[in-house]
């Protein structure tokens, strides 16, 4: 092993340094992401099948409850519902998880040096894997309902990348907030709950009264969901304007999140 030199007075800016360290510790990030997955399903009988079953069951319940309501406006309602739901759950569940993870990881973060972003990146990575796996049950529903499949599906990797970038940025911002203020976790939970009903996930945007639908473009979650849902449900590539807006939003969020997180990272060991 090469001789490492540490000089607290000579360090590249945290913005860069954290990234370099994260690359060095990449095996740790992968291990942690994998362990979250393993832990979650280790002691359950159906194991990994829960990941496939869960979205299916959720869709069936909601489709039975609301399917009749949107029969004319949204044919193949389960496809509309599940594609929106998967994108929504990926973004919100992952960010909610990261807010708790700084506290879970504090034992280690206080005792030994590891890149402070390790936990956040691992959780988002794990969420991304879950998201990818849950596309399988979605595909199953598409096949069963004989929903048309077009080449627009090839756009999905771009959608997923933009969603992941946005989620990582948001996760970094929120996990920083969670270290400084305990109640930020509760506040965010309320935002997510309200957001689920305020965002057209279960219903089409046309249902909203005109006064509200004008504000919809300001809902970042809606942008992201549309980006993922359009290629699947509408068999079309999203508007160029929508793609551009979502991409700019996602990368701006990541930039902001990374800046805030790495600037506060030195404080974390004091605060946790």
């Amino acid at each position, binding site marked *: 092993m090469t001789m490492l*030199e*540490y000089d607290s007075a000579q360090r590249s800016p945290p913005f860069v340094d954290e990234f370099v360290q994260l690359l060095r510790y990449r095996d740790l990030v992968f291990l942690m992401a994998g*362990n979250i997955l393993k832990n979650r399903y280790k002691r359950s009988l159906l194991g990994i099948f829960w990941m496939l079953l869960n979205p299916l069951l959720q869709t069936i319940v909601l489709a039975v409850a609301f399917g009749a309501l949107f029969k004319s406006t949204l044919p193949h309602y389960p496809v509309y519902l599940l594609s929106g739901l998967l994108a929504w759950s990926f973004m919100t569940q992952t960010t909610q998880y990261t807010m708790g993870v700084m506290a879970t990881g504090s034992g280690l973060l*206080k005792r030994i040096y590891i890149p402070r972003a390790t936990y956040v990146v691992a959780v988002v990575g794990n969420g991304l894997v879950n998201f990818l796996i849950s596309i399988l049950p979605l595909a199953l529903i598409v096949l069963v309902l004989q929903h048309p499949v077009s080449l627009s599906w090839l756009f999905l990797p771009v959608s997923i990348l933009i969603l992941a970038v946005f989620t990582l940025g948001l996760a970094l911002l929120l996990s920083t907030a969670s270290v400084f*203020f305990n109640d930020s976790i509760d506040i965010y939970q309320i935002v997510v709950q309200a957001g689920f009903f305020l965002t057209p996930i279960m219903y089409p945007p046309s249902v909203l009264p005109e006064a509200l639908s004008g504000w919809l473009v300001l809902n970042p979650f809606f942008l992201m969901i549309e980006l993922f849902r359009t290629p699947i449900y509408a068999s079309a590539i999203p508007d160029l304007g929508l793609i551009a807006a979502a991409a700019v939003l996602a990368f701006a969020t990541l930039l902001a999140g990374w800046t805030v997180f790495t600037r506060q990272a030195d404080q974390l060991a004091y605060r946790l």
Partner: protein
Amino acid sequence: MIQLDNVTVRFRIPHERIPTFQEYAIRWLKRGIRYTDFHALNDISFSIDQGETVGIIGPNGAGKSTLLKVIARVIRPTLGRVRLRGRVAPLLELGAGFDYEMTGRENVFLNGAVLGFSRKDMTQRLDRIVEFSGIGDFIDAPVRTYSSGMVARLGFAVATDVRPEVLIIDEVLAVGDADFQQKSAARIREFRESGSTILVVSHSPTSIKALCNRALWLEHGMIRQMGPVDAIVDQYAPGQPSQ
């Protein structure tokens, strides 16, 4: 070599604890937030040569653990400069860095990654680590089924498998049963003879004297005295029998 120049670690403590955003906003609107500064380390300078074994002593709250954290890169000094050369390996408290649902084998990789080793490295060293720990067939059982001694042995085996240039020991000398204690003490001696620098925090004057050649006496975040271990420890804890 470890060198500290005028190192200060300052904690800002709000006058009243403000745990929520709501309260923070209210306070901020009212009149701003007042802080008290607490100096966990206050303008500390010293240097330790390669191969030295230094015991850090002092009452609770003197800044011993903070000093170790500054050296281990966990905390960055508020002021001053820390320089050192080589890999720093802290011996972690029992179970830190372990995932109790995972098997011992999976935890060897996890612990290794926490210490900054790659997966490839750990694959090569797995057998040696398992052998030293004496865990045997339990290596494939979840760590939650281990006794605390077994967890400690495995942790020690991973942390010390490769000789670090700087070893940090914070009150975790007594690991495992008598047999393993001998084995671990022998390994630490071996490190010392091979040129590792060792830092020990302990409240036991006897073990400090047995292990160290120099002692650093901290009080209120400042160096009270630093010098040959016997002289310092005898002043710090008079009446304790010397060996």
